[in-house]
């Protein structure tokens, strides 16, 4: 008994448990946010289309996400007989896990981050570029035509927009002078980056729409052509994992936009009174704002045609961001604004 308590109070164990507690403190609110994002999406789009949206289950339909989750859980998990079984099962897990692990480096407030790594922004970029594997694996393992077509579209699309996403991130890194996300946020203390880098902010947002397969770039799941895209063959919990992963990715991308361009946890003005509201609240408000724009775009824009999507990514965004990287570097150097 003594050794057991000694084991649990040893410094390593305490540190481990503290880390686990931190992880839960991020994941649990995140999953609740995902649940309510699905509700918010249906309500917001409903209001934009002069409908009511789901409002029956619970007050204002607040229990609707839980009803949906219960319904999904009670359904049968189907493994297609022609599927590559291991890959088929791993794909949704991969999507879900990748959408969660990226949150490790996002700072919610001053020092409120699970892992304050030096190359946080690169880590985020790396994880978001891995997201495509869940989609490709699902599409291929299903051994079916529609998922495969959806996966192929998604792979090409995500790779195309990753290029401009990367170049936008380079301009932000140049302006902030650090790869650390906390430093990037602190560099925006005087002015949020979306003001001096406004064109990049717009391109970043549009690229995140493409990266998360959201309207108007939701061709990988274009229901009118591909039934539902890469997750046609999925049901029950495996489908739910894709669904959760997709919405968690949306929140992650909004968090990334907030951190890179909208000053992270910083209040809009550098007034002492605004610092009374804690950083995570500012962060959540900004993320909610970006998410609202996500939903707004979905309600208002028609789906792009595939060649238009590719043209936008390669022929417009890529040259433009490339020129802007050079321009930003030149301006920073020329005016002596390079961060030390």
């Amino acid at each position, binding site marked *: 008994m003594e050794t057991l308590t000694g084991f649990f109070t040893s410094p*390593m164990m305490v540190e481990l448990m503290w880390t686990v507690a931190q992880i839960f403190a991020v994941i649990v609110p995140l999953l609740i946010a995902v649940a309510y994002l699905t509700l918010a999406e249906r309500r917001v789009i409903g209001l934009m289309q002069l409908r009511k949206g789901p409002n029956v289950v619970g007050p204002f339909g607040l229990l609707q996400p839980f009803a949906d989750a219960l319904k999904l859980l009670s359904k049968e998990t189907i493994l297609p007989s022609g599927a590559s079984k291991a890959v088929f099962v791993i794909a949704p897990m991969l999507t879900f896990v990748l959408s969660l692990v990226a949150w490790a480096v996002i700072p919610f407030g001053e020092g409120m981050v699970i892992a304050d790594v*030096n*190359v946080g922004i690169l*880590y985020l970029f790396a994880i978001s570029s*891995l997201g*495509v594997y869940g989609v490709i*694996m699902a599409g*291929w393992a299903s051994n079916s035509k529609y998922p495969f077509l959806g996966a192929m579209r998604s792979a090409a699309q995500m790779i195309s927009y990753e290029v401009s996403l990367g170049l936008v991130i380079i301009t932000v890194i140049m302006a902030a002078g650090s790869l650390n996300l906390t430093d990037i946020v602190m560099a925006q203390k005087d002015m949020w980056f979306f003001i001096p880098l406004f064109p990049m902010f717009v391109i970043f947002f549009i690229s995140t729409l493409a990266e998360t397969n959201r309207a108007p770039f939701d061709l990988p799941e274009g229901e009118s052509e591909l039934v539902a895209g890469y997750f046609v063959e999925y049901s029950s919990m495996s489908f739910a994992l894709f669904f959760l992963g997709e919405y968690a990715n949306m929140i992650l991308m909004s968090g990334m936009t907030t951190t890179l361009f909208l000053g992270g946890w910083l209040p809009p003005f550098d007034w002492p009174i605004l610092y009374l509201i804690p950083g995570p609240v500012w962060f959540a408000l900004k993320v909610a704002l970006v998410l609202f724009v996500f939903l707004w775009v979905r309600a208002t824009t028609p789906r792009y045609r595939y060649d238009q999507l590719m043209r936008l990514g390669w022929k417009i965004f890529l040259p433009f961001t490339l020129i802007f990287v050079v321009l930003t570097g030149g301006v920073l150097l020329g005016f002596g604004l390079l961060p030390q």
Partner: protein
Amino acid sequence: MIAPLFFYLFALMTVVSGLMVIIARNPVHSVLFLILSFFNSAGLFVLLGAEFLAMLLVVVYVGAVAVLFLFVVMMLDINIDEMRQGFRQHLPLGLVVGLILIVELMMIFTQDVSSSNVLATNVSGEISNTAMIGSVLYTEYLLNFQVAGLILLVAMIGAITLTMRHREGVKRQVISVQNSRTRNETIQIVSVDSHVAPKVLEDSRAANKQIK
């Protein structure tokens, strides 16, 4: 205590998944294992304290190169049995290449690695290794860096010239032409006499009567 544990985990996974790349029957599974081994080597880089290189490995190899690789392998209709046929035949060649690689690795290990000036300057740990790499890459190794970029550019241009074909008689969409169209050249307003039914309408009425 945890670091060596992770080292053995990553190292084991790298070796096992590397082995699975050649053992797996399905080429797509091979590529997936290749990706896993890339990922684990990125983990090894992190353990070495080279987090910048680790992230680059994931972004470039796992996030971009391997996706395209997987893309191509999935699209190809590869007959697995046919692929297996040449296995015995190419075995000696493969062994020779493997042997050369092992000898090369041995030569690196027998050398004193720490004599390299890059590692020697990085010992302090004050400056992040990203800044370290930048300061060395753009000064001491500038020429090598530029040459590497040039080689990549040549490869890119080569790929484009190999695939670019101008076929005759293909109708292409030219977006600038579409956008520059004006109302005047596309819409023609014709005033129709409303009292007299156009001939087309009468023809269709007549046709309808015949059907009835």
